[in-house]
């Protein structure tokens, strides 16, 4: 399941919602992305995430389904926020649950690598010199490329 929302989320509550009543789950992996203070505590590190409503949900649903095809998952939850976020705020959460830990860990890393590099969001960073759009990074593409299946990459 996926959600794209302005509001914050409660990781503990999402974990309980995913695992309660399913005793087939042996491992629950998660990743939470937070806004880092890049300005050394001056508070000038807020950012705004813009997205493409509709397309974002479609692509997140597709990658979530892809994770379920690649790994034997008992459940998953992806939440991504948009709008203005300040240092320390939660941006994104991935939860993956499986009978065994390796599937949970690997699918969680797969999803967050995709989300941090391929998800249709654009980041506007506030700095002391004004706001500027973040450029896509080649290293992020490489992290996501690790997961490409040879037969489907292109």
């Amino acid at each position, binding site marked *: 399941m996926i959600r794209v929302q302005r509001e914050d989320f409660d990781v503990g509550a999402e974990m309980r919602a995913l695992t309660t009543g399913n005793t087939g789950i042996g491992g629950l992996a998660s990743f939470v*992305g937070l806004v880092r203070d890049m300005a050394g505590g001056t508070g000038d590190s807020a950012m705004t*995430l*813009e997205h*493409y409503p*509709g*397309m974002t949900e*479609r692509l997140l649903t597709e990658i979530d389904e892809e994770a379920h095809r690649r790994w034997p998952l008992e459940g998953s939850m992806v939440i*991504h*926020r948009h709008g203005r976020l300040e240092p320390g705020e939660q*941006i*994104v959460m991935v939860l993956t649950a499986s009978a065994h830990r390796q599937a949970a860990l690997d699918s969680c890393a797969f999803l967050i690598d995709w*989300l*941090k*590099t*391929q*998800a*249709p*969001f*654009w*980041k*506007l960073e506030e700095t002391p010199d004004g706001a500027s*759009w*973040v*450029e*896509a*990074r080649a290293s*992020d593409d490489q992290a996501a490329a690790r997961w490409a299946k040879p037969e489907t990459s292109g």
Partner: protein
Amino acid sequence: MKLLYFAWLKQKIGTDAEEITLPDDVNDVAGVIAWLKTRGDKYATALKDDAVVRVAVNQTYAKPDTPVSDGDEVALFPPVTGG
């Protein structure tokens, strides 16, 4: 056709969405971009470096030769920077 712009493309063009009527001879993504560049300085400047412009047609990533027609939703945006 509904056109959507995101991130710095939105800022440079000065709007986030517009309804346009395609000229009869424009029928793919490359054609839309070439035609937009003729619509004024803001478009020409925003789309100057079209190697960094990504396009989605009806919310699906498109290529220069992806066909488009009047009922489509066409979005132009920079490479995504993720969450």
